[in-house]
């Protein structure tokens, strides 16, 4: 086992353990904090995949904005700081079954695909992912249209969120 494999296994266990805590913890603030640790684990996975930019953006966007938003929302939508009543609905075993089946199905599909055990080629020397990504995002023969559509979507979401949550006097 190489060092990278050991690191991957530790990170994967950490990520999946945190993710399990997200969906099972009773206290929702704790669930949001476990989400932060899951997202952090995913950021480390990106770093392992040599995607520095994506890893840092994961921390900036997910932990810096989305997780904070979740914590705020949890705190704003509770009558008191205690949790009462069950946190899962009564068909939870059905949900668990579906989730396990989805995982098993995905694993089966992966196992029957022949590209699954591919190993990564070494990065070309002088490889600069950031400038390539920047070019890809704004060049007309690459992804400028999805990029612009995403920015319009963000603007629409911004306006929509303000309108929906606005407290009409």
């Amino acid at each position, binding site marked *: 086992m*190489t060092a990278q*494999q050991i690191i*991957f296994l530790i990170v994967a266990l950490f*990520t*999946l353990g945190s993710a399990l805590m*997200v*969906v099972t913890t009773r206290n*929702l603030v704790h669930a949001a904090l476990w*989400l932060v640790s*899951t*997202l952090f684990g995913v950021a480390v*996975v*990106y770093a392992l*995949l*040599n*995607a520095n930019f*994506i890893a840092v*953006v*994961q921390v900036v*966007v*997910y932990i810096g904005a*989305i997780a904070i*938003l979740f914590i705020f*929302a*949890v705190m704003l*939508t509770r*009558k008191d700081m205690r949790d009462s009543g*069950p*946190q*899962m*609905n009564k068909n*939870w075993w059905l*949900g*668990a079954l*579906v*989730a396990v089946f*989805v*995982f098993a199905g*995905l694993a089966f599909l*992966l196992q029957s695909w022949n590209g*699954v*055990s591919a*190993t*990564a*080629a070494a990065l070309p020397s002088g*490889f600069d*992912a950031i400038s390539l*990504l920047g070019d*890809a*995002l704004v060049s007309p023969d*690459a992804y400028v249209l*999805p*990029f612009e559509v*995403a920015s319009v979507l*963000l603007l*629409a*979401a911004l306006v929509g*969120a*303000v309108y929906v*949550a606005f407290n009409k006097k």
Partner: protein
Amino acid sequence: MVPLSWYLLLAAALFGIGLFGVLVRRNAVAILLGVELMLNAVNINLVSFWRYSDVLSMTGQVFAVIVFAVAAAEVSVGLALVISVYRRRNTVIADELDLLKW
């Protein structure tokens, strides 16, 4: 070197856990937490496919960036809806939001 299958299995497991959260949690905010886990699983797949195929074509990373934008939009609108619902009905339990289930 870590084979591609490990990353894909990690993503599949994360997706399954997220799906479980979406299906069983009663609190609307917790359901959104599950959706976040699923989006992250998708992103792990995108980035690992980028790394394990031609790294010079940035398709995987570009789509990951767009998933970030979509996730941010989804969370902001979703949480705004939850807060708005909480103001009107004084609850965020998904089962109790049954005005359309007469």
